[in-house]
């Protein structure tokens, strides 16, 4: 085309980024790569090809890790661990700083290599992925420096197995490696098999930074290698980002192993547009939301919910905007939408839309697609019902589905009508509406009048089946630290068995019942369990709860959702009132405890329980979130929200203190709970119901069951309405709870048969509060 012709058409032309430096780098390695283990590159072995999805050309041959490779990598990480953990915060900060600086020096090489390997537009790798990755290392260099003084009781977890996805290869590497290293862990990381190249370049950067051998190990390969890492006995923690189905398998595979686990999984994030939004900006926001990285983004705003009155105009403008998107060579600096990562993914997207699209109206962007390569047009599907498969299932491609709503309440209901809970966007110019809706959305991240904003300082992660754990900010460090010191083994406290030697001495026979929905109720099964003293004297009977009682208790807890809306002050009042009423009956409780345990510690335990109630009465209005100074004109609020319904198997060995120690933090943070009392010594819990009844505890906020821990743990872990299960039982139920929680991916907190000093500092405080809350990060850009 001549200049004169272009002058007439005003067309865009090609604006290619030069791929040569990245191709030269591959050539220097003869396009063959091994692993990076113990500070050295292993010779290339048998493996697989890494391709450029935009052209189908092979970029390099990578090595499939063997079990021996993984063993060597884990051994190297384990060997490097003590020195790295023992290094000063300053020394670790210097190492992370060096990594950040070196990544910055090689930033364009990293960006071009990423685009070649993944297919994302160079604009995104150059302007978003790589700068965010670098920022992550800078930020965590700072946290490494501050950890000694700010988190004096935190120790590294140990060797971290990290498995990352193909959609943000280097950025997800940074999200995993930076916090792990900052807190003194060593890592074995497996990049996705489609996109390992930038991780291998990062390995060279680790060498250039002088990182001690074995601190970072990178092994390549497919899911089989991931499985070796997940099940490796030498690994202390698994961090995974990827699909919900694989996350669920990992939850099952690690259950009971004692490995810590964080999962960042899929989503079907709502993008809610109210009629008072800046419509043009909301349309543009979708370009950054669902057409960012070809929609292959776990937190993509893939479910558009638009207020009915503006829907027609909104869709018209959206379609016009879609038609203007430029799809093509990802290395072109004038391209909006690049290539889908792999033909397999392209087929999956194509199939889902062709099968499910007919339930609505499908609009493909009227923009030319390149021939060859993995390309899929930006797509909008309107008129879908909530039941439509495409409204529920993650497509992981440039496909936006949409429905309309009438009222804010309906918007929230539709938005939350999902198994997922990763992110959400809210568009309105009303500050009242935005700040009302944001807390009501079931999501770990909410963007007000924005989408896909990220920063190392702002915690990121999901709720529900989008996973658990947070990455970024101070909160992200929790995933890579544990309290200092080793807990001893927990002895099983078995119920006293045998034939009672005497009848109870109480003048009138008392019937201990279950406490469900604020009422004392008889157990569904109609059975009771005798409670014997160590000398086999019959102390009384408690109700034998079964799965239907769990169902009833959970239902009561679900219905008590109003508790979450009470102010911290109001919740504190209830906790103090419980303490007051318990105090009035302190002697009776002490006698009861002593009678059951045969000891004389009852008075001390009651006193500790009263103090604990005061502790959480104090915390109820003080465990606040943070306002993070993210690099926008605006603020990211990390808000502590209640987890929801918490099921807990209470400690056996301290029948009253164990129950109060989980109930009080749960209540203080606005949760409702279903508590299974100490199995051998349940009478104190049964008596405690009367205290609750007289303490203004709203019905359903606390529900107490008595019975067999092993019998009830599975039902709680299975229950889809239970958001978290904690187990402090002396029966070893940790594996069972973790395994059966996989179905709903609920949070678990289990003791792995380790003892806890319920009377000491380990029995209360931050760790309980953190477990009783979910962090929601709300991004609020502002400015008129």
């Amino acid at each position, binding site marked *: 085309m001549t200049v004169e012709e*272009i002058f007439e058409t005003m067309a865009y032309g090609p604006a290619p980024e030069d791929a040569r430096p990245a191709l030269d780098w591959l050539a220097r390695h003869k396009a063959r790569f091994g692993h990076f283990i113990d500070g050295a590159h292993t010779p290339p072995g048998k493996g697989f090809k890494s391709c450029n999805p935009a052209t189908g050309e092979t970029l390099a041959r990578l090595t499939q890790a063997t079990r021996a490779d993984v063993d060597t990598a884990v051994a190297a990480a384990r060997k490097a661990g003590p020195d790295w953990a023992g290094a000063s915060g300053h020394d670790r900060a210097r190492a992370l700083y060096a990594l950040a600086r070196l990544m910055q020096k090689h930033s364009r090489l990293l960006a071009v290599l990423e685009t070649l390997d993944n297919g994302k537009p160079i604009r995104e790798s150059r302007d978003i992925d790589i700068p965010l990755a670098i920022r992550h290392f800078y930020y965590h260099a700072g946290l490494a420096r501050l950890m000694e003084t700010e988190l004096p009781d935190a120790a590294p977890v140990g060797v971290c197995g990290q498995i990352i996805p193909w959609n943000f290869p280097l950025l997800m590497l940074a999200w995993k490696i930076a916090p792990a290293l900052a807190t003194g862990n060593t890592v074995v990381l497996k990049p996705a098999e489609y996109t390992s190249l930038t991780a291998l370049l990062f390995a060279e950067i680790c060498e250039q930074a002088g990182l001690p051998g074995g601190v970072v190990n990178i092994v390549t390969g497919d899911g089989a290698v991931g499985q070796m890492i997940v099940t490796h006995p030498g690994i202390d923690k698994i961090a995974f980002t990827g699909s919900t189905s694989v996350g669920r398998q990992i939850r099952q595979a690690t259950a009971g192993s004692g490995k810590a686990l964080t999962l960042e999984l899929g989503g079907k994030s709502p993008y809610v547009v109210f009629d008072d939004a800046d419509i043009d900006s909301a349309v543009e926001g979708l370009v950054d939301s669902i057409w960012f990285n070809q929609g292959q983004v776990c937190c993509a705003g893939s479910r558009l919910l638009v207020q009915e009155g503006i829907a027609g105009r909104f869709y018209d403008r959206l379609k016009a905007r879609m038609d203007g998107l430029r799809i093509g060579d990802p290395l072109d600096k004038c391209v909006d939408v690049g290539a889908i990562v792999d033909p397999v993914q392209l087929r999956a997207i194509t199939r889902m839309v062709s099968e499910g699209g007919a339930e609505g109206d499908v609009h493909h962007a009227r923009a030319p697609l390149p021939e060859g390569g993995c390309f899929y047009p930006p797509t909008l599907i309107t008129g879908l019902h909530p039941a439509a498969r495409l409204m529920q299932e993650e497509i992981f491609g440039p496909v936006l589905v949409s429905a309309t709503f009438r009222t804010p309440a309906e918007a929230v209901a539709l938005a939350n009508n999902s198994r997922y809970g990763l992110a959400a966007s809210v568009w309105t110019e009303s500050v009242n509406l935005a700040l009302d809706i944001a807390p009501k959305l079931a999501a770990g991240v909410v963007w007000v009048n924005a989408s896909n904003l990220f920063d190392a300082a702002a915690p990121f992660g999901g709720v529900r089946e989008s996973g658990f754990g947070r990455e970024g900010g101070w909160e992200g460090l929790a995933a890579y630290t544990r309290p200092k010191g080793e807990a001893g083994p927990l002895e099983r406290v078995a119920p006293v068995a045998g034939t009672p030697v005497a009848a109870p001495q109480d003048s009138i026979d008392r019937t201990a019942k279950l406490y469900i929905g604020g009422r004392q109720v008889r157990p569904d099964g109609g059975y009771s369990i005798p409670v014997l003293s160590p000398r086999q004297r019959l102390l009384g009977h408690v109700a034998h709860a079964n799965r239907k009682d769990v169902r009833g208790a959970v239902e009561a807890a679900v219905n008590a959702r109003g508790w979450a809306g009470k102010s911290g002050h109001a919740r504190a009042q209830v906790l103090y009132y419980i303490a007051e009423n318990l105090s009035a009956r302190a002697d009776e409780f002490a006698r009861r405890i002593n009678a059951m345990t045969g000891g004389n510690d009852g008075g001390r335990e009651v006193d500790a329980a009263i103090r604990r109630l005061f502790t959480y009465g104090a915390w109820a209005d003080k465990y606040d979130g943070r306002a993070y100074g993210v690099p926008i004109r605006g603020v990211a609020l990390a808000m502590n929200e209640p987890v929801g319904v918490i099921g807990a198997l209470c400690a056996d060995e301290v029948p009253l203190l164990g129950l109060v120690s989980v109930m009080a933090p749960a209540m203080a943070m606005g949760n409702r709970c279903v508590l299974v009392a100490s199995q051998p010594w349940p009478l104190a819990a049964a008596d405690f119901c009367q205290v609750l009844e007289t303490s203004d505890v709203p019905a359903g906020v606390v529900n107490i069951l008595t019975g067999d821990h092993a019998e009830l743990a599975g039902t709680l872990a299975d229950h889809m309405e239970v958001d978290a299960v904690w187990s402090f039982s002396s029966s070893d139920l940790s594996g069972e709870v973790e395994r059966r929680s996989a179905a709903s991916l609920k949070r678990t907190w289990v003791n792995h048969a380790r003892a806890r000093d319920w009377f000491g500092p380990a029995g209360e405080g931050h760790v309980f509060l953190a477990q009783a809350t979910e962090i929601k990060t709300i991004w609020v850009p502002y400015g008129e």
Partner: protein
Amino acid sequence: MHIKGKPITAATGETAGAAEATPMAGDHLPRNPGMALDRAWVSSVRINTSAVERRVTALPGRRSVKKDHQAAWLLRAITCVDLTTLSGDDTAERVRRLCAKARQPVRADLLDALGMPAITTGAVCVYHDMIGAATAALSGSGIPVAVVSAGFPAGLSPFRLRLAEIEDSVQAGAQEIDIVISRRHVLTGDWQALHDEVAAFRRTCGDAHLKAILATGELGTLRNVARASLVSMMAGADFIKTSTGKESVNATLPVTLVMLRAIRDYHERTGHYVGYKPAGGLSTAKQALQYLALIKDELGDRWLRPDLLRIGASSLLGDIERQLEHHVTGRYSAARRHPMG
């Protein structure tokens, strides 16, 4: 890169849907007749400043125009320039020199090398007293004379004098009248007064085209920019223009985006075409390419022609000339190699 079946050309690379609805380039467009003030529409305008800023901040990374395309785009930018002198020390000879530059903004040897026929700037923009010199100097060139009027730049002289000034300028041969709106009407939300004012200016212009300068740097918020844009269009402005060049902040990309979207909104609802003129603050070839890309993406190709796009500038042309010489020779150029205006 190919479309399935046929090669992608610049023409097929365009968005087919938009092209169908848009008159062909070069078609003579009817003037915007304006409409009664629609208060509900004006008050429904919402602008989210942060989102607008994100869009324009990302733009330079999203859109890149290189080599022959860049040269062609820069030549197009030149044809949209209102070559401007608005100084207290302007003289007839100074204006004649400017007009000569407007007739031949790029060295002939560069145009030959680019295979381009002769081009001119979009207009020459002067004060009223220079109309005579300008019309004489531009005689036969087809280049219109634009005149700033109506108490420019403050717009605070008596209303009847402002109308009289327009009348005089039109009579003296001005084909385009750039007026500045009363900012106080925007700042106090007196949309009726603003509509009345601009409508009166438009009536007085007769056949001359009216460019309404919003003085966006003095409107306080982007929402005010959007509302003032709409009201000016409702009152019959042929163009909406950002600034006089005398405010401390002149054309910016966020303001541009808001005004472009207002033009699009007005076009969607009424079918009328209104032009856009950024002025002041646009002085480099690189900026010009960004503005063109934003207009192309938000409004469409039809708005990339001088009947719907003007760029008020004095130093921009010099930078574009140097870029064009670099494109032709591969060597970075110097200002002294290009005739001054």
